[in-house]
């Protein structure tokens, strides 16, 4: 995995390339928490270039979402392919996250 962090207006946009799994989830977590400490409140994780996510990766998303909400912020997700969408539906995490179809959709309504 590698990820790319950009600011788009007041939204911190993170692209996850490759897998978000037990072997690398800490990197994503650390990066987002740094931004949160630095004052960022609106986060969008874009999965357009993501292969698969395991339960540890899902766990990190849940944990981050909680921490961001505690600071009055919000975490949104975008661009889940069919496989990833299945994963969120199976675990019912689709009821917990704001999942946008595209990055633009997520950004315009933020």
């Amino acid at each position, binding site marked *: 995995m590698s990820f790319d962090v950009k600011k788009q207006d007041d939204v911190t946009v993170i692209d996850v390339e490759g*897998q978000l*799994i*037990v*072997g*690398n989830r800490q990197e994503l977590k650390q990066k987002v928490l740094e931004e949160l400490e630095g004052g960022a409140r609106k986060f969008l994780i874009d999965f357009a270039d993501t*292969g*698969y*996510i*395991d*339960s*540890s990766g*899902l*766990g*990190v998303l*849940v*944990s981050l979402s*909680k921490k961001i909400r505690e600071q009055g912020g919000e975490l949104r997700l975008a661009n889940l392919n069919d*496989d*990833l969408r*299945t*994963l969120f539906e*199976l*675990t*019912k*995490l689709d*009821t*917990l996250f704001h999942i946008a179809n595209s990055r633009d959709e997520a950004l315009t309504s933020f």
Partner: protein
Amino acid sequence: MKPVDFVLELPNDLRAIEQAVEFLASRAREAGFDEGLLRLNFRVGVTEALANAMLYGNRGDENKNVRVDASVTADRICVRVRDEGRGFDPEHLDDPTLPAHRARVGGRGIFLINKLMDQVEFNEAGNAITMVLNAPPREAP
């Protein structure tokens, strides 16, 4: 079809998981197994089993190994993951999809294995899991 058998013994290193899974997926692809099922079901299922073996079974002990036995044909993949731990009781896990559990950080690994694989079995001790994934039925010609 004669199954092709592999054995992998991995050190207790979470960073070895992705490439080990990739290796097994490439062998299954070569054997003609359905690509769609390899993408999510196979990769996530095996990743979960390896992570649990390293984290809970071997409890991060660097001197312990995880053993993977895999057998693949175009129709069926069977993967067994065994750790050197004391095992656990897989029957009594909370359902992570219940509203009260949904916001938990953990507890989705075995659940996902059960959802993504066609057959899942633990050995008596609970330190070895065997997962079977079947190819989708082919359309009649």
